[in-house]
Structure formats: C-alpha cells, structure tokens
C-alpha cells in the first residue's frame, strides 16, 4: 500500500505547485527556483525574507526540519591540497559561480524542510551579504534550527539575528577563523600534499589520463 502511495505522487506538478504556493505566500521575495521533476526543489529567497519564508513553508505543511547549513561558493585558493609546497602557487580560477537557483553573493545559507505526509522536501537558499553576513534566525520557526545555526555560525562566520546563544559547538571559544570557508586552509594539506589525490592511476587500456600530469 505504501509503495503505491509513493508512486501515485505526481512528480513535477506537485513540486511546481509547491513553488507556486510559496510564491503566492511570500510574493516577489522568491527570487529564483528550480524544479527537477521527480527529484527535488530549490528556491532562492531574498535575505530579508528568510524568516518569512520559513513561516510560509510551515504554514504550507512543511513541518519537518531537516538541516540548515551554508555554502561558500568561492573556489578554494588552495585547490585540493595537491600542490608542491615548495613551488610557487599555481594560477587558479577564482570566479564565484553559484549553483542551482542562482545567487549573487559568495556565501549562501541553505536549509531543507520536508513535508511529512507528501514526503517532498524543499531546499531553500538565501544570499548572505558579504559586507554584513547576517540573516534572520529560524528558531521561532523551527526550534531545532538552534544547533544548526550555531554550527553554521562557527564554521562559516554567518550571524543569525535573534539567535539567543551563538556559542561555538565544536571548536574552542578562542578559535580564530571559520573552518568551512574556502579560504581557510587545511593546514595538514598545505604542509604535506595528500598522496591520495594523485593516486588515481589509469588502468591499462584506460583512455582518461587527465590526472597524468600530477606527480
């Protein structure tokens, strides 16, 4: 009975409708959206409408809070740590390109909420201004956002206005820097390149050897 219920969910129309419902709830604060039929939904909302989006989603029945995190879209200036530390740093592409549903800033907050009976989730993104990386806290919407926001604050340096207690979760309180930002070096890799990254040996007969130039 259960598998039939899943099969009966019309993939695209259902997800399209969710985006439409959300648009009618928050208006032009919904900047961009992407629906992958039968897969997932991405929406991007205006920064000042972050909490309003959460509330709108809850009123649409998305009661289940899955996670909240952030993405730093800047390409890592350190690559994958495969460089020879003695050689001069190689040129790297540093254009910032955001993913699904677009974006304008280097960092984006990402959250996912799920509808408990339709079993459809929505990935919500919002831009975080580079000058003042603060968005509204989701705690009044989902109490469970508390720890996720603490973690995001610690790892990305994004503030959450209205959060009562943005203490570090993992790191010592006097730790400097935000480890999951791309410009935070993974020191172990800087000191000694990871041998595994070049250990992608093409097998005999393999035609791909893009990695052949790495030593």
């Amino acid at each position: 009975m259960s598998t039939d219920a899943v099969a009966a969910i019309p993939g695209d129309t259902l997800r399209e409708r969710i985006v439409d419902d959300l648009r009618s709830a928050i208006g032009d604060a919904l900047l961009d959206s992407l629906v992958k039929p039968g897969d997932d939904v991405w929406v991007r909302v205006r920064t000042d409408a972050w909490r309003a989006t959460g509330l709108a989603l809850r009123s649409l029945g998305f009661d289940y809070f899955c996670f909240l995190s952030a993405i730093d879209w800047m390409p890592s200036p350190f690559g994958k740590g495969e460089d020879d530390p003695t050689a001069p740093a190689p040129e790297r592409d540093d254009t910032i390109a955001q993913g699904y549903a677009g974006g304008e800033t280097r960092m984006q907050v990402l959250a996912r909420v799920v509808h408990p009976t339709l079993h459809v989730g929505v990935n919500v993104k919002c831009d975080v201004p580079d000058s003042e990386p603060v968005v509204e806290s989701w705690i009044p919407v989902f109490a469970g956002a508390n720890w996720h926001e603490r973690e995001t604050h610690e790892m990305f340096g994004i503030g959450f206005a209205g959060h009562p207690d943005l203490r570090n979760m993992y790191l010592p309180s006097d730790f400097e820097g935000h480890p999951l930002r791309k410009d935070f070096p993974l020191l172990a890799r800087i000191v000694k390149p990871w041998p595994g990254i070049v250990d992608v040996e093409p097998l005999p007969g393999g035609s791909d050897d893009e990695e052949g130039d790495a030593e």
Partner: protein
Amino acid sequence: MTSTESLIDRRQLSYIAAQAADARLNVELETEGMTLNIGPQHPATHGTLRIIARLDGEQVVWAEPSCGYMHRGYEKLTEVRTYPQVTALVNRIDWLGSFANEVPFILAAEKLMEIEAPPRAQWIRTILFELSRIANVSLFLGDLGVQMGAITPVFMAFRDREYVLNLIEGATGGRFHPNFDRIGGLKDDLPAGFIDETRVVMKKLRNFCDEMENLLFGNEIFQSRTRGIGVIPKDVAMQYGLSGANLRASGVDWDLRRDQTLPMAWNKVDWKVWTHPDGDSYARCWVRLQEVRESTRIVDQLLDDIPSGPVMAKVPRIIKVPEGEAWVSTENPLGEMGYYVVSKGDLGPFRTKIRSASFNNISIVPWVLKGVYVPDIITILASLYFILGDIDR
C-alpha cells in the same frame, strides 16, 4: 558603607535567612541549585558526550550537551578527497552501522552522474544495509540494559552481534568499516555460502529479539524507569528534526525506506513500519526492538530472490561527477542520514553537507531534559540513542 554597618547588615541578613529557613522547612525542602557535569568520560554516557546539567535538588532545571570532543571535520576533508575516497571517511561517522553511511553518499554521486547500480548490486546493498542496522541496533538493545543496571543483556547483544559482524566481514572484508560500496555498484559479489549462513544468523537474531523482549521489556524495573519518561510530542519531534525510531516512537508514520523511491530493494519486499503513540523512552526502545525483527524479515525475503548479473555498472575509470547539486538521505540505523553534495564537475565534491541523524536527535536534549530527575537523564539519553561520531562528524 563602613565595616560596622556591613556587619550589622550581615547579621540581619543571616537572622532573616535563618527565620526564613525555619519557616520553609515546614513548607518544602528547598535546596540551592548546583551544576552537575556528566562526562566527558563517564560509564553511563556513550563515549565522550558531556552533559552540563543545572539541578534543583534532584530535578534538572537546565541541561545541555557539550559536543565537539570528537569533531573530525569530515565536511572539510571531503573537499580535498576524490569521490571514491570519501566513502572511507563517511564510514566512520556512525561506526556501528558503517555500511549504511556509505550508501547515501554513493547514491548522491550516482544521482549526479545519472547512473544506477545493477539490480544485483542494489539487492546486496540493501542486505548489507539491513545487516548493519541489525548489528547497530542489537548493540543498542544490550546497552539499554546496562544503563538501567541490568548486566546480562549486553553480553547477549555482543554475542549475537558478532554473528552479524562475521557476515559483514565475510562479504566485505571489514568488520566495522567495510568501505565496500562503489559508485556504480559494489566492490565484489557475495562470497559462497553467504546466503545459507545469513539465514541461520537471522534466525538467531530473531531469538535474540524474543529474549530481549522477555528479559528487558517485560521487566518491571525497566518499565517503571522508561514508561512516561522523556515524552516527546509529535510536533516537537518534527520541529527538532528527530528521525528514525525516535520520530516513529512519537507516532509519526515515516520511514525513508518506504516513503521515497531510491534505487534500493526495500520496496521489493513486504515489511511493516512500526510506530508507537506514546513518545516516551519505552516507546523509542520498543520501536527499535521491532525494527530489528523487521530487518531480519527484510533480509530473509531479499535472500530468496537475489537477481543474477553483474554487481558493477559501467563507469569511467576516473570518476568525474558532473556539475550539480544532489540530496540523498536514507533511513539509517540512527535515523535520517543524508548528504547534500555540490559538484563542480571535479574529481571530488565541492562541498558536502553531512546531515547526520544524531546531531538532530541530540539537539532536543535541552528541551527534553528540562524538569526530569537525575537518574532519568541516563535512560532518556540511552533511549534517544546516539553515536558520538554521528553528532560531531
């Protein structure tokens, strides 16, 4: 203020305090608040979780877990690894059910690459997934007794878990960290004799469940220490993102094995999602017990008709995952475990958000511990069931 004045003040204060204390004695016994540190290392916390509890007498006024004693930075490390290398990392998130950690990541990579494992690989993946669930949760059931002073169940759990671990070792070569799942399929086929051996073990595990049910769940002490303790209502559980048995014990009929279409074999067999309306510690333990039983049934049915064929799809020798974003989560032994993988068309992920079950499950602790008595802290934590590596990642 001069010293004489303050002396008088103090005398007055102590007099008033003494009067007040006398008066209060007849009303109720009030004690000063104290802060109790449980852990980081304590026999009654699983691993290095530290709970800071402020107490009023025997009652908890405020409590919070202090995490980070086992933070290994996997999200950052995935950014400098290639896709096939990541499974070796994510294996170690929930170390009691390692194989189950690999599956959602591999599925996310496969989703981005738009490939699907051949049916035989899907079947074997599901079998190993359920075996790791059985190994994981059977240890929980044994451990549960220890938290309440019963020593015997844990020996039974270790005894019977060993059979399951032997199966996993036989198939994958690793007892705890199989690292067996590959993009496009599995590293290897099942060894000879695996199917017969598994059937025997599943029977043993069902006996183990019966034993546990009689020994623990029928026990009066166990019941009085878990029934009505640590009740989490449905809407609170959803807000905090509780998942797995914790959510189902609050009466939410939700199982990701059933409720989403994944290239796995769960929807090919007949099984039941157990829920419990109470939402207390007992319900959480009871749902897990039923789930072990149900898992043995799933494995038994899957063994009946494993499709033949290859266990590996055609994949390029060097795996480059096309640009895109994908979210895949599965119903792991501890709850919903998911990976949000962002790919830039590179050899490794650009960013991986690891959504582990225990992080959400434990974030409810400050809420649920408010007002409980000190001995109940341990049973509530035990029934919420977390793995330290799964909180800190």
